[in-house]
């Protein structure tokens, strides 16, 4: 079907809906109609994808549950680490936030087999403790491998060579403040903050399961990790490891 004069406007409207992750096409007639056109009309689909490309966005998936967009490197629509916390964060805090996000994704999809499963099927919910336990277990394993090696030199810390696992391991799970509250510096609170931020972006849903608080990954998050994030992060890690070897 040839493009109509207002198709560019409609493509823009569809992308605008997709950039609001909490909107549900089932409740928004215009969004649903635009998605139907996207799925049924090749020319319109191509137009939407081209505009998204120009904006630095990739259409990762689209069906009647909505449209998921992934930001390309340095896209104006990418959420930057600097925006994660208000105020200045130390290098150590930024590192911990980054490790926590990695660990959350790895707790939802630990193995490649889990990543290969259909993104439309719910992964089991995860908890703050589970993510913390996974990180500490890995840190302990690496520590055991390093038991016979000498302690790192003090200069390594300045040069940024001090290993990430040592930083995570040295941070307590919970730190109590003078007035008996939990400090945001403890790893459990850092993980909780990471989850809450993901909930704000429509990536997780906070739920209670008996007396436990669990976080359920949404379809959007599962598509993002499966279709874009996992592979791109893995590629970067692989390149860094290869560069280290050569």
């Amino acid at each position, binding site marked *: 079907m040839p493009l109509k004069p207002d198709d560019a406007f409609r493509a823009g409207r569809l992308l605008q809906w997709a950039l609001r992750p909490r909107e549900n096409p089932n409740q928004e007639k215009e969004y649903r109609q635009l998605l139907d056109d996207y799925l049924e009309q090749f020319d319109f689909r191509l137009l939407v994808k081209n505009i998204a490309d120009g904006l630095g966005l990739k259409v990762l998936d689209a069906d009647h549950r909505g449209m998921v967009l992934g930001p390309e490197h340095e896209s104006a629509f990418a959420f930057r680490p600097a925006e994660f916390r208000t105020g200045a964060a130390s290098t150590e805090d930024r590192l911990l936030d980054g490790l926590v996000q*990695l660990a959350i994704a*790895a707790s939802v999809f630990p193995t490649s087999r889990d990543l290969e499963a259909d993104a439309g099927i719910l992964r089991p919910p995860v908890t703050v403790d589970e993510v913390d336990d996974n990180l500490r277990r890995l840190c302990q394993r690496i520590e055991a491998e390093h038991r016979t090696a000498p302690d790192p030199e003090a200069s390594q810390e300045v040069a940024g060579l001090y290993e990430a696992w040592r930083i995570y391991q040295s941070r307590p799970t919970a730190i109590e403040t003078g007035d008996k509250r939990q400090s945001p510096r403890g790893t459990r609170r850092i993980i909780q903050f990471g989850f809450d931020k993901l909930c704000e972006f429509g990536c997780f849903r906070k739920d209670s399961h008996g007396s436990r608080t669990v976080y359920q990954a949404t379809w959007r998050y599962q598509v993002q*990790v499966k279709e874009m994030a996992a592979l791109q992060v893995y590629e970067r890690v692989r390149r860094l490891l290869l560069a280290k070897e050569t």
Partner: protein
Amino acid sequence: MLLHTFPLHDLRTSDSRVDEDRRHYDSLLLALKVMDLIVENAGLETEVDRTAVNRALEPLLAKMDEAAGLAPDVERHRLAIDRVLGGLRNDDDRRRPFSILYQDFDDFGKVVKRRLDFQLAFDQFHASGGTVLRLSNAAINLYLNALELDIEDAQTAAEAVLQSQLARGRFDEAVQSARNAKLQSIRYDEKIVGILRDTRRDLRRVDWKKEAPQTISDALDHIMVRLQMENSILSAAEERLEALADPESVRKVYQVVQLMRDCRGRHMDLHNQLMGARNVFLEEQGRQSFLSKPGVSTPSLETGVLDPVLRMGVSQALEVSGIAFPLWFGGRASGLFSLADVLIWQLRPRREPVAGHLAVEEADLTVASSEIPRFGRELREMAERVFAELPAPVRLSELLAAAARPPGLAHLLVLLALHDYARDQGEPALGRVEKLEGERLDAGGFHGDELMIYPDGADANAT
């Protein structure tokens, strides 16, 4: 097929290992009920979610409690339902497919070990924004007690059976067969829609050299035959409808007609999709052939990403997390600065604080003696008379089953009986009410513990 039953047997076997107060629940029966519920609601507007499962299993659990002499308990029921759903979804292995090792003979008669991976049930994201429970094909076959046939064959079989059942007047079975035929339609629909969706997403996921063209060609042939078959079933069913007089049979055949119309609608939609399928492939091939593709297989996030990053120096680990951060959160719209909006906001007239007292309008008050009663005075007097005129102790269910009473009286009698049972000290009593251990009330739409009502002055111990 036999191997697919293993998780159900495991669930049943482990019944004896749960807490003692939950051992009386038959998880096999509950699991079959869940499967039945999902199949029954497949393709309908309201598919089965956790709330629907709770609603369906609660009465069964209460009956199992009753048989075991236990009072129903919401928390215990929740745990029992969690266990059944967990068993069907394989929660113990993070909801991965069940994996069963078995032995087989190869073409040369040599013993080989094989592994069968399959799922029974899973939670799926629904277009409504919620989640629904779905059965895998393996579980549907298991439930339908069908052989491992292709979807096409299974549907042909289901519809042929249905036609013969209609002809022989076996309407109950015909309704069940029509449901099965509808289920096969849904599965077939999902298969084709899945091929098209994967093609749009990434052409390499679908084998367009052999498999997909063959599937589409088969599907078109299949649908033509199915539509003819469905039309012939519909005419046969409509003919039977005209000839039938028994309302129950009419209802059942009408159900068959509805289900067949649904199948026909689905097949017509699918036919339209199939006609455009080849174009989807050609268009996507043209578009995707110029895109660069990463050449690596699916990574393991724990061992392939998280572990190496933890071993990296801080600066390298920060580099990775910097790249990864936007990817975890997805695309989001950042607001642009608007000078006009800021100016309008700044030029808004200041809202003057209200000084002094706010004038309060005098309310037009009336004297109310008490809350508006739910039951009228007349009805209340009638209920009190029923209690006062009781000739002998009587069970609440017997009282409710007695001759027709004005609307609302049964409700009031139950409320008064409960009030008497738990009345505060010193409060006047209409009679004396005691709970009958082990007996259940199930009358006039009321359910719960059975109560014995003693007329004023009668001795509870005398009966």
